[in-house]
């Protein structure tokens, strides 16, 4: 009984897996074979009729990303300058070096510097001064130097 259940479960799992693969790659499915040890199910479909486009999702050649985000290192309040109300460390259009201070995240009264993890030109500052941020939230978008 347990053995059968395991077998059935396995087959069901295989089926789901097949389904998932089909769903992830729409169009033009021709053949499915589900096999478990000595047992197997094989399905084959007609070639898609003309007019129905066979769309294969080919992953696009990984193009080097032109922009990168500086992420919040912790939950807290983001400040663009060294203290609330002060002039910002950087503005859009500024070129920053790797390791440059680009902001502050205050958490529990501790001021934590936010550093640029690469060099680049500031493309956007999507978080306003004094706004609360979550961990991992983009604080700054950098256009990477040397990438067009």
């Amino acid at each position: 009984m347990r053995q059968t259940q395991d077998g059935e479960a396995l087959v069901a799992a295989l089926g789901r897996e097949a389904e998932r693969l089909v769903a992830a790659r729409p169009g033009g499915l021709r053949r499915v074979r589900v096999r478990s040890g000595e047992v197997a199910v094989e399905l084959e479909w007609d070639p898609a009729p003309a007019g129905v486009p066979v769309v294969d999702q080919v992953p696009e050649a990984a193009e080097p990303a032109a922009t990168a985000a500086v992420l919040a290192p912790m939950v807290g309040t983001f400040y663009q300058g060294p203290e609330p109300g002060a002039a910002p460390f950087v503005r859009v259009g500024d070129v920053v070096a790797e390791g440059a201070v680009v902001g502050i995240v205050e958490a529990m009264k501790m001021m934590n510097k936010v550093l640029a993890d690469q060099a680049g030109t500031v493309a956007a500052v999507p978080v306003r001064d004094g706004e609360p941020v979550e961990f991992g939230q983009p604080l700054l978008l950098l256009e990477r130097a040397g990438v067009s």
Partner: protein
Amino acid sequence: MFRKVLIANRGEVALRVARTCRELGVASVAVYSTADRGTAVTRFADESVHIGPPAAGRSYLSAPALLEAARRTGADAVHPGYGFLSEDPDFAEACAHEGITFIGPDWPVLARLGDKAAARELMAAAGLPVLPGGSQPCADEADCARTAADTGYPVIVKAIAGGGGRGMAIAHDPAEISVAFRETRATAELLYGDDRVFVERYLPRARHVEVQVLGDRFGAAVHLGDRDCSVQRRHQKLVEETPAPGLCEHTRAAMAEAAVRGVRAAGLVGAATVEFLVDAEQRFYFMEVNARLQVEHPVTEMTTGVDVVECQLRVAAGEPLPITQERVRPRGASVECRINAEDPEQDFRATPGALTEFHLPSGPFVRVDTHFAPGDQVPPFYDPLLAKVVTWGPTRARAIGRMVRALGEVRVAGPGIRHNVDLLTAVLSDPDFLAGTHSTHLLDELRDRLRTGVGAR
């Protein structure tokens, strides 16, 4: 009652707390590490905040991150769940400084109960039986050996700051005391940054029995009966039940009374568990207080009908306990099994991965607590608890029979995933377990048997 509670935890317990919040009309805030993005509690809760990377030290153990999350969402209370910061007096104190209610005992109470030697002294003063041993930390190895000799072998050397089965070593005779002292002190230093240890008599085949207690700010304290948690792997509980089997009613009543006396003496507000060791002659000895919600609280909820989390919220909000001792009338018996993603054949190594199949039991007298659904990922960063399956019956035998039926419905599979359901089923059919005469050694014995027996899974 609170307006909004931040749940400073993850997994099934975070969802458990969020459910009661919802039922009481209290808004809930989930927090999540990067590894827990999209988990059940983040979808269930009213809000959720990304607090840090997968490493618990920078997320679920980070008081600043949690308090910032509470502040930005306007939460007026924090429920710490179990584990992580649930018994951390510093976190409780920080909450208090921020004007946020920590749903648990006041921080000085946590600090006192978290010091095992101090807790032992406090309980002994309140008249609770404690094991023979030194009530002071050992000054050095020689002091430790002297205390051990005075106490009488076998002894157990314990870290003052320890808990949860970590930071302890047994010495059966004077030849072993030096290693036990050094190992425990090293572990204690490593784990807790506090190398103080103390010595207590060791009971080789004792039962682990605990009493669930609740206390409020008005001095009221009640107990919700006891639980037996003797089925453990590496000092981690696997099967829990209530009432503890094999206790004579006199012992049971005396232990419950002692537990209530103990938490009253400690001035504890909230839910806590007083743990005892019970020897073959039904003598019981105070071991420690877990001043928080326990993983196994559902068995108590099944027999008493009392929502432990609701009680925690109410007393933390300054309300009196919603129940009196006379109105607590436990009914029948309840068993909990922890289903873990782990490999019992490889020393319970956790097996994270994708749950391609995940089907849990349901139906009459079955409760399931889980935060997983088919297709979810079991992250490798935290404990591998997949689900708690809880059954109830008018008798212990019936509750166990239901659990066997329920475990038979479990289907868990995924690439690399292993689970302990066969081991749990073996426990439930073990003659010692069924007779209620098992000790904390049951699992080791069973695992050896399973390993040498016919294919266990």
